């Protein structure tokens, strides 16, 4: 039986009709047209679906949309667009922190969340924070450089 769920997505109110078994990821992509969160493994291992739930990084494939009533969801679309890149996106581009791009939205979002919490992390802290986001292209070096570059800039 479908249920109505009210969400706040990227500062906009949204109301969706969902089956209980639809994950937040399904609803973001298929009902709200927000395709920045990617469906990778859909079992919590790859991190490609990472969004913020009430400001905290969360796997959107491991939470059902019906559980998100009145929650504040922030997706990668909130942080920038092709004409107006976020400083973290710009840094990923400059440091070759992406190749195929599949992991990139979640990687960037997780990095932004890290710096909101800990503005000047060490390299090991960056690697730990990103450990749950798998990238099969870059070998991570460019990604870590990109995050450290943003973190080392004067505020």
């Amino acid at each position: 039986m479908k249920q109505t769920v009210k969400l706040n997505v990227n500062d906009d109110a949204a109301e969706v009709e969902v089956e209980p078994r639809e994950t937040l990821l399904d609803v973001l992509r298929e009902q709200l047209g927000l395709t920045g969160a990617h469906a990778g493994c859909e079992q919590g291992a790859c991190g490609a679906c990472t969004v913020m739930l009430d400001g905290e990084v969360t796997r959107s494939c491991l939470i059902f949309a019906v559980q998100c009533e009145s929650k504040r969801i922030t997706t990668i679309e909130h942080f920038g667009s092709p004409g107006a890149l976020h400083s973290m996106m710009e840094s990923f581009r400059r440091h070759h922190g992406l190749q195929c791009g599949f992991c990139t939205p979640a990687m960037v979002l997780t990095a932004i969340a890290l710096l909101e919490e800990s503005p000047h992390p060490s390299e090991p802290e960056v690697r730990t924070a990103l450990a749950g986001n798998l990238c099969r292209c870059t070998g991570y070096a460019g990604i870590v450089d990109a995050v450290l570059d943003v973190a080392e800039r004067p505020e």
Partner: protein
Amino acid sequence: MKPAPFEYVRPASVAEAVAAVASDENAKLIAGGQSLVPLMAMRLARPTLLVDVNDLGLDGVDATVDTVRIGACTRHRRLERDPAIARAAPLLREAAGLIGYPAIRTRGTIGGSLAHADPVAELPAVLVAAGGSVIVRSSRGTREIAAADLFTGFLETTLARDEIIEEVRLPAAGPRHGSAFCEWAPREGDFAFAGIAVTLERDPDGRCVVLGAAACGVGSVPVDCSEWLGGTLGEPTASAALVAEVARVVRAGVGGDGDRAELSGLLAARAVYRAFARSAHPGEAAA
């Protein structure tokens, strides 16, 4: 990778949740969902009713001199950061930081991890090593289950199908207390091959007294290693031979497959060494 259909309810009280879970023999409680939802996605679990326990007011931490009481829905992230946990249950704090990744720890809960009873998970081993317990409730009332009586097999516990864990209790760390959780995983944040929780005290003569120890990843339940280590050990920081002895007895105790037993022994030696070093600095145990 899509779960089978199910009904969903989100009760507002423990009594309603207990009634809901009792109403359907294929009902399942969901807290953080970080273990359950993958099982549902792979259709290894096909509950027909999910009872969401996130609105029952079961999160929170209350530490007294003797006991730390933790609401079952308290998330791992809070265990990592709550100052009362750092002070009174540093073993739990260290173990919580080793669970999965940050985005898993923001959702996963202590009660969920214990009820799921994955033998490679950190928190069941912590509960056994620390000699903790869970308070559970059903329509029949409330009861306390000691860690030693909770875990019965792979993903199996003595919880009845309609019982809900309300609270987790651990003895509070005393002034001479030291603890450590050491594990080895092939990739950071991945499931550990083996891990060990150790809690000990420095006696008035400065010797190491092991209070409890338990290993994850080496059996179908957390393996209680306390008896192997047995009581007073002297001073492991001063004696390489003693650390070697810890490794030997745990390796022998775990037995079986050579690599995993050897790993358990090495992790036990490391954990005892670290825990004892920390016991010299009360209040900085998790440094």
